[in-house]
């Protein structure tokens, strides 16, 4: 992985460095402020203000850092900003339902901001070891957020997250150290290790519980923001394509089976994400990196939209359910170029995942101002998937080739 300040018109200038430092430091500074703010209402507005500011700063990143890093940082800040708009509603509901108390809300808020800061550090740090340290912060923050909920199931989910993601991060650090001595083994360790952070097989067992037991905005950050960063590391690391294809297919098929078995909506979103992230890893293995990047973007936007609408919006759910079929359309050509036989499990897994999600679709369509962020994300995803303009296509190509 090369330094992220090596590209872009502002590259190497103090403006670029200040921009990157600002996007990374702002969430940590907000976390420090939130640690001493007693009022939860003040806390949610501070978070919303900080997230808005971070999004504005991230919009300037394409001029300062390579497109892949800028893209992921911008996507992260967009999801964080739209999620922060639901803070007053969701925290009030959690307090009323006895899921959180005032002290736990403070811990939860600090965890939210630390998770975002850690993710931005991992993306923009420009060094594989800094990325690893950023992901340690992400895992610690995700455990604090999940464990803030006052139920034994949430405490168990947080412990499981620490255990499995901790084991994954040990393997990932070992893989990073061994990259030049044993490249194949290192690639395997990176896939298993960082795959745990993304919720991919085989260390994925924490994902569904963390998504189901946490407070709604926290579940969005854990399942969307935390899951995206390892994909950038897969893109930047030299991992054998065969390994990526195998891991991607395994995640797709396991997610599809879990979706067919079915449980509650939040767990289904987590398992749908497992299947679809499997498709992204598969796409990276086949060399269709622009398609992988597009799928990752669609998946992030639509997972956030589904969770923000609490799984009750038919439009967001349908769009989320159709992503595997869209992925099949995108990946059929590159898959046949590798091996036509691979099309069989790919098509089977994608169809099963889509059918599993469609079978659980909600009845109604969310309306009103509260549904606006989810609609914005669905509209953005639809524009990217169906009417992608040339400039956006060029951006995606540059993102993966940069």
């Amino acid at each position, binding site marked *: 992985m090369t330094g992220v300040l090596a590209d872009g018109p502002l590259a190497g200038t103090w403006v670029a460095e200040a921009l990157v430092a600002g996007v990374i430091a702002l969430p940590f500074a907000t976390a420090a402020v939130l640690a001493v703010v007693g009022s939860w209402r003040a806390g949610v507005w501070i978070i919303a203000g900080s997230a808005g500011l971070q999004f504005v700063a991230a919009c300037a990143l394409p001029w300062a850092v390579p497109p892949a890093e800028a893209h992921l940082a911008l996507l992260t800040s967009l999801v964080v900003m739209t999620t922060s708009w639901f803070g007053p509603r969701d925290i009030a509901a959690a307090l009323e339902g006895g899921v959180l108390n005032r002290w736990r809300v403070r811990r939860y808020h600090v965890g939210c901001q630390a998770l975002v800061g850690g993710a931005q550090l991992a993306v923009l740090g420009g060094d594989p070891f800094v990325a690893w340290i950023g992901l340690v912060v992400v895992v610690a923050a995700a455990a604090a957020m999940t464990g803030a909920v006052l139920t034994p199931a949430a405490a168990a989910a947080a412990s499981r997250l620490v255990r499995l993601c901790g*084991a994954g991060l040990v393997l990932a650090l070992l893989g990073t150290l061994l990259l030049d001595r044993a490249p194949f083994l290192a690639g395997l360790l990176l896939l298993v290790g960082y795959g745990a952070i993304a919720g991919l097989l085989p260390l994925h067992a924490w994902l569904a519980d963390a998504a189901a037991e946490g407070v709604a905005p926290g579940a969005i950050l854990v399942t969307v923001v935390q899951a995206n960063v390892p994909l950038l590391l897969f893109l930047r690391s030299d991992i054998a394509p065969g390994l990526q294809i195998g891991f991607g297919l395994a995640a797709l098929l396991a997610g599809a089976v879990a979706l067919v078995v079915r449980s509650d909506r939040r767990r289904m979103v987590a398992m749908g994400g497992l299947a679809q992230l499997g498709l992204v890893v598969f796409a990276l293995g086949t060399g269709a990196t622009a398609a992988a990047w597009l799928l990752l973007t669609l998946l992030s936007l639509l997972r956030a939209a589904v969770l923000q609408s609490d799984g009750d919006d038919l439009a967001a759910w349908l769009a989320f359910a159709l992503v595997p079929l869209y992925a099949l359309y995108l990946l059929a050509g590159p898959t046949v170029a590798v091996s036509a036989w691979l099309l069989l499990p790919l098509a089977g897994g994608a169809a099963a995942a889509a059918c599993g999600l469609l079978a659980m679709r909600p009845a109604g369509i969310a309306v009103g101002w509260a549904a606006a962020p989810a609609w914005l994300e669905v509209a953005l995803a639809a524009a990217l998937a169906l009417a992608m303009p040339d400039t956006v296509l060029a951006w995606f190509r540059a993102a993966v080739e940069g």
Partner: protein
Amino acid sequence: MIAVAAAGALLLSVGLLCVRRLDVALPLLALQSACAAATLGHVAAIPAFALGGVVLPLAMAWMRPATALAARGGAVSLWLSPLWASPLWASPLRASLPWAGAVALPLAAIALFARSGSGEAVAAGVSVVALGLWLVAMRRHALATVLGLLAAQNGLVLVAGAYPDLPPTAAFAVAVPLLPALALADAWLHR
């Protein structure tokens, strides 16, 4: 000297898999941390030993001085919980699983790295990491997770010792036991 320290760390990893009590495991862990730090040849050896061999073991001893670390599937049972509870896994098969891992994992690592010519310290380090994670997988107790992650961190220190020009960020990641500290904080919060 490095080969002896690496072999010592590997033997202590096997010892950690055998012990059933925390007060017995902690001195072994401190000794393993000293062996691993001795191979590092970098200023990062000091925080690696101070944090991984002294501070965190003392914190664990303060939390639960004489805890029994009963062997019942940890992460393995999280993945395969229905299968794990079935008669198929009943003793003696389940009882022999930790031993099978203790033999197979170092042998596999040594065979792999001896062939690639990466040196004994790297092979021993990879074995220690694998055995540390095996400890996490085999025992459900929260402090066993901390023990296993600390042992794995010592393995990472051994592997890092094979790199003469370690970048500062890598030295920090290897020397500061962030993940064991996180697991300890989790165990303390949910005790």
